[in-house]
């Protein structure tokens, strides 16, 4: 586990403190950083990615995994983001089923070295031991997020205590 990872803490949209340490040994974590609100708009691909995670949340739960989506910077436009995330391809959900976390001071963004206007869109898969099993850092306003399937594959391998073959 990288030094300092278990010390990272966020507040969710309800004001509750969420630490990565609390998941260690219990659940895998898919930590998703959105770009936040920049350039006069919310990153459309971040909204899409989050809604896909919402739509497939059950599959993540089956793999003993929590999804944490981080909204960096000011909470302006947060509600707009949440509404977008709740609209999946097939339906409208009542609530985002996993924590939406705030990183208003960009502490976590700085830890992962993904600083951009606010943050580069990024995804990290952290297994129960705290090892980072996947790291994705995207260019701003691009759609090249790891697919849900790719993330699920890494999680499945993490649960089996193994890592996938390359070929």
């Amino acid at each position, binding site marked *: 586990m990288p030094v300092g990872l278990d010390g990272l803490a966020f507040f969710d949209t309800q004001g509750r403190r969420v630490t990565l340490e609390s998941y260690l040994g219990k659940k895998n974590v898919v930590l998703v950083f959105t770009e936040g609100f920049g350039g006069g708009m919310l990153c459309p691909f971040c909204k899409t990615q989050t809604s896909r995670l919402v739509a497939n949340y059950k599959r993540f739960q089956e793999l003993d995994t929590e999804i944490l989506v981080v909204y960096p910077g000011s909470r302006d436009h947060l509600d707009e983001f949440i509404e977008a995330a709740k609209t999946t391809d097939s339906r409208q959900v009542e609530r985002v089923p996993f924590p939406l976390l705030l990183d208003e001071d960009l502490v976590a963004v700085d830890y992962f070295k993904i600083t951009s206007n606010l943050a580069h869109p990024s995804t*990290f898969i952290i297994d129960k031991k705290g090892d980072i099993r996947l790291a994705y*850092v995207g260019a701003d306003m691009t759609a090249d997020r790891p697919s849900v399937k790719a993330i699920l594959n890494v999680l499945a391998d993490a649960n089996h205590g193994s890592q996938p*073959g*390359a*070929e």
Partner: protein
Amino acid sequence: MSQVAYELPGQPSEQPDDRFVQVALQQRLLKGQHAEHILEYSKKESVSVSDAALALSLLEPHEVDAIELLVHPKQLIPGFELLGLLGSGAGGFVFRARQDALQRDVAIKTIITSARSSTLRQARMQREAHAIARLQHPHIVTVYDSGYFRGRYCIAMELVDGETLTQLIQRHSQLSEYVTWQIARQVASALAHASQTDIVHRDIKPGNILLTNAPSGIQMEAGIPFVKVVDFGLAFSSDQTDSDQITATGTTLGTPAYVAPEQLQDPHVDERADIYSLGATVFHMLAGHPPMSDRSPMQAILHKSIGDDRWRDQFPDSLSAGTVALFQEMTEADPERRTGNYLDLMNRIDEVIRELKVADDISSQPTDHGLKLSVPERFNVVKTKRSWTRPGLLLATAVIFALIPVFLKGSPASDSSANVTWITDGLPYSLFDGFNVPIEFQESGTWIPIVASDGSRVLAGQSGGRLRIPMRFRGSDSSNTRIRLGVHFPAESQFMVSTVSDSPNVNEMNLLQLTATRATPLSDLRPSPSAVEGVDFEPSQPEDVVFQRLEISRQRGQIVINVNGDLFGTVRVNDAEHTTLRFESTRGTVHLADFDIVQLIPESPELSTSPDVR
């Protein structure tokens, strides 16, 4: 290893005759249609395929001998497995071989069957082994072991990947003065060392000068090859008595175009004979053809014997005064009037090199060395493929066997080589622990630690994945570091290395690109001579995963890149600007492993401040 271009009927078969043909095809000594012809003849006449090949004149006896050795690759020398034929000559072979115990590839030099009864040739090989064994110099090929095996005298020696100076010259009409003297300087350094141990080479010529990449840690100016002097088979030491000497009767006295006149009269020559031959070699590099190329060898001997040195008049007249003067001094027919020792010679060469730099308006500042030279551009068209199974492309040593007695008068000389050797200081620090994405280095894209098909833990970078690696060791102020990694290409993927800066005003520098089969220098790198047009790899197979080894060293204002242990290229950098490397998967997925960084320090700090350092 190259593929067999011809498939035997009814494969698989391991019959001895079939194996013989397979090896002949692998070594490209036979073509497919010839193999069929030989097999048909063998069957029809009920003779072995080797006899059939000889009867049909499709193989020479020495080629048959080499193939038969390769058919039983572990039988020649215990502990060594012959892998392929590197070259052959009038009297012997050089094989590439694997030394099992040390897991290293070596060159094995031995003689052909017909020469086994020749005590002269066997003795000459023994002499060569003994001569080189006494020499330890970066520009002289190293002998590991020698002895008689199965009736043949064999020498196991350092394997040198490269080409001969002859081959280099053949690719060009001529070499420039600058490259010529840089090569001559290295040869002089090697011969000076030999001279200190009372050894005269006596057969210096382009065919006995191998050009290769500098060993890891040794910096060479971009475009200048690293020299290895080979074939000390004519060498003889002054501490051996006449009774130990081999008679010259019936043997060649060196090589007529390059041999010193006094060596034709009396084999008891001193280092001045080698200096003459080096001067003749300089002529060949600058003129593009050997001395007296318009005359037969016998005519050359005759002219030299009577003191006719008009061949020197054919020296190109467009050369600098310094070059012409030094060439004349080196090739005086009278050894008493010739440059007499290596210390003087190396000083004179250095002087000419300095004059050439000034004439070309090249800054004497180390940071500018080599960057504005026209010479490397001319040199840059050299291409060397790493296809060692093709005889002649990769030479371990020249294999011309001749026996000449020599008597030497040693003269101390110093090797004032200006190269700085950088060594590691402390242990490497791993940049990837096999389990975690090193998030401190990720820049973009998707990186996943996985287990490759050979079981190794690798960091897989998908297309677009970038890492930024600061070239600074943890807690150190020095940027002199070496970053090392293995790169594996599981499919059609591509990997690029560049430098980046934290400053937005500093441009990136693109250094090299790797694919599963090739490393290619990019625009900002000054490639080594053998890497100008890229270096080919043996592609990795799923059942035999190969990691291409990449070493990127920052050595006081210069980045030096080695690929698979060979110098690939260099680039001058500003220590304050190009502070970080970028590794990028530019297509498909690449696997990185054995990824570490270590501090470098100059081995001899006092040398590193020398104005000669480059």
